[in-house]
C-alpha cells in the first residue's frame, strides 16, 4: 500500500482499533466502495477524478471481494453499464468530472425513468465546455434539477471532507436502493485531490444471490422459479400510463424530501448573519466565520449536505429574523436561487462566488459579507 498509515492517539471504537489513514478524496471513494460491498465500478478517466479508477485498478478488488472494475470506452458507456448492473440488482457506480457527467445525462435520465438505484460521482471542474481542470461547483443546477430530459430528481450528496467522500458511498447506495432512485455524490477537484485523515468504513460483504433476490425482487437476472419476467424500461407510449408513472415518481420525490434532508449548522446559535455554502466552499466559509468572529461579526454557517432534497425549510427557519444571508459558492450563483426561494424575500440574501476554477480565499467571503450585507 502506498498510503501512510497513522495511528490515532489510542482512539478505539468498540473492540477494534480504528485505523486512520491519509489519502485523497478520490482514493477514499474507491476504497470505501470496496469495503461497503459494491459489486461493480465502470468508469472512464478524466481529471480531476482519475484516482478513483486508478486506485481500484491498483487494489484489484476482483481478487478479494469479487467486485468488477471495468474501464469503459466512454462516459456514455460507463453510465449505461451502471444502468445494466443496477437493473440486475447489483450495487454499481461510476465517476467522472463535469464534461464527462454532461455525457452521462442520457443514462441518468434513463436510470431515473426506469427507477434504478445507480450511483455516480461528479468531481466537478470549471466549465463550460472543456473548461478547466481546476475545481468548481458550477454543476449545481445540473445535479439538483435532474440534468437530463424529463421531470426527475437524483439524490445529491455534497461531501465537504475526505471523510465524507468515504462515508457517502455507502449512504448513496443505501438511499438509492431504498427509493429505487439514482443517487450522486457531488464533489469537486478540491475534495477529490486533497489529502486528509480518514477512517474507512468497516468491511461489509457483497450481498449473496439470495439477498439480492430478496432486496430487489424487480431485478433482471433471469426469472428464477418461473416467476413473471421482470422488465426494466422507461418507455410507456400511452400518455395516460406515462402520466401515472410521472405522478408516482413525484410522490416518491416528495417522500424523499420529507425523509432525507441532511445539513449541518456551525456557530449559528448567536449568529446575526448566516453563510450558506456546500462542499469545498463550506470549508472556506468555515474559515471565513473564524476571521469574521475575531472581528466581532456574529456569523454562522449553514451547510446543506443533501443538495437535493434541498433543506429549504431548515434554511428559512434558521434565517428567520437574521440580518442577512450570504450564499458563498464556486460558481456564478446557482444555489443562491434555491436559498432565495426558501427565504422568499423575508431576509436579504446575497451571493458571492469565484468562477472558472478559482477557489475563493476566506477573506474574500468576509469582505463580501461586510460590503453586501452590513
Amino acid at each position, binding site marked *: 500500500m502506498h498510503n501512510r498509515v497513522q495511528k490515532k492517539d489510542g482512539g478505539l471504537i468498540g473492540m477494534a482499533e480504528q485505523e486512520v489513514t491519509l489519502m485523497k478524496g478520490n482514493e477514499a471513494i474507491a476504497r470505501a466502495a470496496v469495503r461497503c460491498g459494491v*459489486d*461493480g465500478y*465502470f468508469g472512464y478517466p478524466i481529471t480531476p477524478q482519475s484516482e478513483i479508477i486508478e486506485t481500484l485498478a491498483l487494489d484489484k478488488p476482483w481478487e478479494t471481494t469479487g467486485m*468488477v472494475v*471495468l474501464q*469503459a*470506452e*466512454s462516459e*456514455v*458507456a*460507463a453510465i*449505461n*453499464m*451502471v*444502468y*445494466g*448492473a443496477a*437493473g*440486475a440488482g*447489483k450495487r*454499481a457506480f461510476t465517476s467522472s468530472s463535469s464534461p464527462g457527467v454532461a455525457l452521462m445525462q*442520457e*443514462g441518468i435520465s*434513463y436510470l431515473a425513468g*426506469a427507477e434504478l438505484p445507480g450511483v455516480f460521482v461528479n468531481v466537478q471542474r470549471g466549465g463550460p465546455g472543456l473548461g478547466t481542470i481546476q475545481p468548481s461547483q458550477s454543476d449545481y443546477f445540473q445535479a439538483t434539477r435532474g440534468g437530463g430530459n424529463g421531470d426527475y430528481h437524483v439524490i445529491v450528496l455534497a461531501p465537504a471532507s475526505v471523510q465524507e467522500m468515504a462515508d457517502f458511498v455507502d449512504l448513496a447506495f443505501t438511499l438509492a436502493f431504498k427509493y429505487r432512485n439514482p443517487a450522486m455524490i457531488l464533489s469537486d477537484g478540491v475534495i477529490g485531490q486533497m489529502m486528509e485523515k480518514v477512517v474507512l468504513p468497516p468491511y461489509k460483504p457483497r450481498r449473496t444471490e439470495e439477498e439480492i433476490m430478496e432486496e430487489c425482487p424487480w431485478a*433482471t*437476472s*433471469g*426469472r*428464477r*422459479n*418461473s416467476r413473471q*419476467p*421482470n*422488465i*426494466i*424500461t*422507461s*418507455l410507456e407510449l400511452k400518455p395516460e400510463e406515462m402520466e401515472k408513472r410521472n405522478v408516482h415518481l413525484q410522490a416518491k420525490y416528495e417522500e424523499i424530501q420529507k425523509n432525507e434532508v441532511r445539513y449541518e449548522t456551525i456557530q449559528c446559535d448567536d449568529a446575526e448573519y448566516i453563510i450558506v455554502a456546500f462542499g469545498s466552499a463550506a470549508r472556506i466559509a468555515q474559515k471565513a466565520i473564524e476571521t469574521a468572529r475575531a472581528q466581532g461579526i456574529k456569523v454562522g454557517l449553514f451547510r446543506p449536505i443533501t443538495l437535493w432534497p434541498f433543506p429549504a425549510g431548515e434554511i428559512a427557519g434558521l434565517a428567520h429574523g437574521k440580518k442577512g444571508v450570504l450564499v458563498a459558492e464556486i460558481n456564478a450563483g446557482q444555489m443562491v436561487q434555491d436559498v432565495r426561494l426558501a427565504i422568499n424575500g423575508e431576509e436579504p440574501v446575497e451571493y458571492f462566488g469565484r468562477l472558472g476554477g478559482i477557489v475563493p480565499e476566506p477573506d474574500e467571503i468576509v469582505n463580501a459579507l461586510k460590503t453586501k450585507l452590513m
Partner: protein
Amino acid sequence: MAQNTDNILSPENVVYRKPKLMNDVQMHYCPGCSHGVVHKLVAEVIEEMGLEEKSVGVSPVGCAVFAYRYIDIDWQEAAHGRAPAVATAIKRLWPDRLVFTYQGDGDLACIGTAESVHALNRGENITIIFINNAIYGMTGGQMAPTTLVGQKTSTCPYGRQPELHGYPLKITEMAAMLEGTCYVTRQSVETVGAVSKAKKAIRKAFEASMAGKGSSLVEIVSTCNSGWKLTPSQANKWMTENMFKFYPKGDLKDTTGEK
C-alpha cells in the same frame, strides 16, 4: 374429408407451433416483418437450451424496443445504441446467465457503434443479434448506416449517393476482425432453409456466450417492407437480389471450436 382433418388435429400430431416462450399477444410489427421470425428463433433456442430462467435480453431503441413484450424472459430496455454496454455489466455481474442484445442497424451500427465495437473487442461473453434491414423502420423509413448505395429512403429520396451520404457500413465484417469475437455470422430468414441456418447460428452464439468463449455477432439480413414500400413478398425478392450482394451470407469468423 372433414373427418380426416379432425382426426389429425390432436396434440400428439403437432409438428410445428410457435415456441412456448413467445407470449400470446399481437406483435406491433408490420405484416411480414422479419423481426417476428427472429424473435421465434431466439425463443426456441432459449427453450431448447433450457435457459428460460437464466436469460436476460437487452432490447434496443427502434422497432424491436418492445421485444420484452414478446419473449417471456427478463429484459432491460436500453438507451439508443447502448445495449452492448448494458449487457456488458449484466454479464460481468451475473456471469452464469445468458445475456444477449437484440439491435437494429441504426442502434447497433450508427448511434451505438462505439458500444458495439468495444463490447465485441473486449470479448464480452454476450451475443448480439443484429437485424439489418438497411433502413430506419420505427421512425418511418429514413436512411440507415447500412442503406445500400442507390437505395431510396425518406432522407435520401434520390437514392444513397456516397459523395453525399457516405457508404453503407459493413459492421459485421469489422466485428470479424476484432480479437474479442469468437463467432461472427450473417444469416437471413426469408425461406425455410434460411430460417433453419439462422437458428443454428443463434444456438452456436448462445452456446459460445455460455461457455465464455468471447463475443458473438449474428447478423440477420432482414426486410422492412413498409420502409421499402414493397409487399412482404416483393421485399423478400428485393432483399435476395440486392442485399445479399453487398451483405453476403455465411460465417465470417468461427473460433468456437478452438480451445
